[in-house]
């Protein structure tokens, strides 16, 4: 597949996701929560419900569309926490003295040894299940990854020739950091962030699939998958569509990350 085509597909998915997250009523005709037992478990292609209905008679398409909002909130929210926390810690380690750097870098290394889903589960154990707690847990468990990258970039740029020559020309430390080190170090971090959005969406859906995310009847893709498990043999599409939604949004984030990396290079 050519680069351009891939980028076009990625952009289209992003546009669709944002539209669904911001104005779901525009493309979904039904209430995603209101149940209607008389219309339960309608098959694909039913008039008015082209993707069928679930076990409570709710329109599957409408629930898919409304599921974009929690997914985007999870993706962007968790990424914001990981990004801000990681960049700050990475800055402190990268710009601080040698001792502080050794200590923090050691801490990042150790944190790296924890499987990140387990770290999130540990936090949820204490905070309790729920949408916001899952977001917090996923965001915090992503901080070490960002911090490591940021610290490495700053170290690399700090010792590069152009920063040294600008120091030699008499540019102050502060101006150097703001004008040269930070803008150059942020590039790879932004790429990681766009990749992390997709990962957070997938993790968020995994957690709610396991029953640790938002409560029913929230229209959320992981929950929809959990509910679909009972009907796998009769109505497999109930499980197929939410999975496609998750996969597409994660893929869109990977494509964006690739495009950003190429631009940066």
């Amino acid at each position, binding site marked *: 597949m050519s680069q351009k085509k891939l980028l076009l597909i990625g952009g289209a998915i992003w546009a669709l996701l944002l539209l669904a997250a911001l104005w779901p009523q525009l493309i979904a005709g039904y209430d995603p929560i209101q149940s209607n037992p008389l219309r339960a478990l309608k098959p694909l292609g039913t008039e008015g419900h082209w993707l069928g209905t679930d076990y409570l008679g709710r329109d599957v398409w409408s629930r898919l569309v409304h599921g974009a909002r929690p997914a985007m909130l999870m993706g962007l929210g968790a990424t914001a926490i990981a990004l801000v926390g990681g960049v700050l810690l990475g800055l402190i380690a990268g710009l601080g003295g040698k001792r502080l750097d050794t200590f923090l870098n050691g801490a990042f290394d150790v944190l790296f040894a*924890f499987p990140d889903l387990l770290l999130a589960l540990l936090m949820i154990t204490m905070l309790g299940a729920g949408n916001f707690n899952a977001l917090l847990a996923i965001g915090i468990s992503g901080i070490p990854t960002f911090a490591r990258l940021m610290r490495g970039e700053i170290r690399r740029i700090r010792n590069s020739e152009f920063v040294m020559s600008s120091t030699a020309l008499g540019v102050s430390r502060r101006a150097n950091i703001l004008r040269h080190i930070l803008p150059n170090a942020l590039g790879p971090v932004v790429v990681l962030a766009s990749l992390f959005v997709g990962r957070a969406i997938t993790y968020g859906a995994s957690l709610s*699939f396991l029953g640790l995310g938002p409560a029913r009847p929230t229209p959320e893709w992981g929950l929809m*998958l959990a509910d679909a498990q009972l009907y796998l043999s009769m109505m497999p599409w109930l499980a197929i569509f939410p*999975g496609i939604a998750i996969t597409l949004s994660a893929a869109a984030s990977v*494509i964006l990350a690739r495009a950003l990396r190429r631009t940066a290079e």
Partner: protein
Amino acid sequence: MLRTIRESFLFSLFLKVVIVTWAASTITFIVMHATPGTYADILTSDLSQYGISPERRQEIIAAYGFDRPVWQQYLLYVGNVFRGDLGMSYAQSQPVGQIIAGQIGPTMELAFASIGLALVTAVAVAVVTVRAGWFGQGLTSVLEVVVVSVPSFWLGLVLLTTLSFGLGWFPASGSQGLWSLVLPAATLAIPMAGTFVQILRPELQNEVQAPYFITARARGRRYYSAVLRHALTHAMLPILTLSASYFAFLVSGAVIVENLFGRPGVGRIMLNAVVIKDVPLVSGIVILSAVAFVVINQSVDRLILWIDPRIEKR
């Protein structure tokens, strides 16, 4: 003498395990104390459902050391972890270590089966497609996106729907026999195999252009036999390093796959413990997997150094 000890592999491994164990127990301790509702409250509030008296509550608090200053509790906790005592599970009133030991077998089975399946699949795909230029190129670039995007719990559901309910080839749940291991292992193996192929294919492409490979071909060795015998041995090294770092993925994956397929194992008790807030059990699993991660990665680094001494120690 002292110098050789300091530089020996076992000593550096020991040092890293000590650091990680200390850090892991510190983190779990902080998490326990930084969150609303103290450790003692959670413990005794659960018991109060069964009519616990105030005196008995005091007894429990004293037994667990909750009435002491925080730094003493911390030292007690970390000291216990180093002695291999991960505490008692709230829900099962059994030592955490014992519970995990009883469940580790099926999880290891799953982990080894997935790694094995991923390696075999990746090698097969890479070897077959190494000659096919544009097709292989397209395959790699599509894989790059798909592999990281498909969530493993959905992959498991799709495999269940098609191969188990649809075609009836595999049992849907349980852990009886090798056959029931195929779908859970495949769920974890497919994303891993996708990543392995992405790395293995370019490596193989370099190897088949190397002089030694052309010599082997000129001596009359068949193409695929030469790939398997010569090129693959070289191309496998990065895969070995990578598969060690996939340990974290396998642990997280076990939580999802074991619950999805109804298999026993550490992932199953982990989720259960999270739901009922069995903090010592969750902490114990987190500490042990961090330590296991360090041991596995260090050992594989060492193994690679032994296979190919040209690679410098990092």
